[in-house]
């Protein structure tokens, strides 16, 4: 195993903190173990809790390249692994004489015509990469089975070129928003962690770390208001990124406390759905009023 830049969960937690990612003990332990044991880390949680960020900050901390595979409905193995560059092959074939082309077909399937997609890139990069498989729940069962195969072997056979094997597997982070349950077979291969919305104190800390120009008081008001927004019956609960955006917008407007008027005027920074905004506006007093700190 290559030397890691941290030798304990504490050290990892500190290193993440220096990159302004505040991971709690559970998450830090899960990341530490995933990297130490060469196992993929499956992160589940609602949109906006910082799952994708984990892979990004881990790549920074490890000094590795981040390779991202964004999953979507209908993604297939070719789009994830490799494809042949057809137009380039076609041009090359045309450039050859008709009778010579036949003799050179093999050349058309050489490495220079291969288009590397994220999974092949990650296999080739091996221990120099962090592979992020983002939103796997959006892909279908078949793709999940294919991914499991890749994660089991970190090898791929390309008939025209040969077998590509990662000597050391890359660090892998898989995320799911849990629009569907992933299969047990895949889960068994991974370490698992569920990321919740942060508690009030942690969210205040995160805002302070990510938006230093926001005052402690304002950060506290905003984090409290967002926590209450999340309890409303809304379609898209705001994530940590929205809390930071909102606090930034308010600080930019010169606010140092959050009041109802200010909150209503800037709701767009924290809620992106029109109906959610209406619902929050109707309840703005509850969202903000309870936000006053007891000592105020």
């Amino acid at each position: 195993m290559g030397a890691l830049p941290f030798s304990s969960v504490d050290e990892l937690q500190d290193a993440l903190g220096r990159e302004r990612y505040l991971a709690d003990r559970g998450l830090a332990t899960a990341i530490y173990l995933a990297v130490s044991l060469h196992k993929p880390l499956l992160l589940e949680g609602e949109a906006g809790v910082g799952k994708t960020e984990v892979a990004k900050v881990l790549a920074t901390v490890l000094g590795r390249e981040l390779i991202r595979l964004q999953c979507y409905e209908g993604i297939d193995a070719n789009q994830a692994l490799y494809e042949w560059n057809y137009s380039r092959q076609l041009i090359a074939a045309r450039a050859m004489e008709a009778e010579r082309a036949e003799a050179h077909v093999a050349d058309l399937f050489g490495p220079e015509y291969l288009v590397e997609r994220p999974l092949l890139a990650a296999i080739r990069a091996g221990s120099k990469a962090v592979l992020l498989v983002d939103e796997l729940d959006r892909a279908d069962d078949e793709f999940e089975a294919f991914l499991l195969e890749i994660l089991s072997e970190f090898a791929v056979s390309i008939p025209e070129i040969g077998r590509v094997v990662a000597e050391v597997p890359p660090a892998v982070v898989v995320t799911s928003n849990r629009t569907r349950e992933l299969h047990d077979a895949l889960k068994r291969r991974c370490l698992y962690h569920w990321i919740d919305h942060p508690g009030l104190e942690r969210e205040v800390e995160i805002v302070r770390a990510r938006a230093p120009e926001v005052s402690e008081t304002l950060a506290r008001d905003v984090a409290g208001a967002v926590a209450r927004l999340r309890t409303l019956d809304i379609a898209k609960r705001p994530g940590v990124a929205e809390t930071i955006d909102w606090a930034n917008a308010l600080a930019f407007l010169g606010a140092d406390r959050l009041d109802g008027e200010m909150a209503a005027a800037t709701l767009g920074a924290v809620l992106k759905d029109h109906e959610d905004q209406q619902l929050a506006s109707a309840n703005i007093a509850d969202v903000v009023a309870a936000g006053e700190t007891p000592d105020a």
Partner: protein
Amino acid sequence: MGFGRFLRRRGLPVGTGRILTFCRAVGALAPVTRDGLYWAGRASLIGRREDFEAFDRASDEYFRAGIRFPDIA
């Protein structure tokens, strides 16, 4: 090992592979604290958020019963 079987008796789907991973995890954390054991156990033995509660109850019970994890250097 005993802990894995203990969880299984409580209906948690803990397979041998997961128990093996747990053992490796504890080894990677050494020296391991009670807190570390808990998080390592949850990350390696559990694969669904819904099972966290059962895991919490079971690990509480297990520790309260005074059953000690074997020392792992």
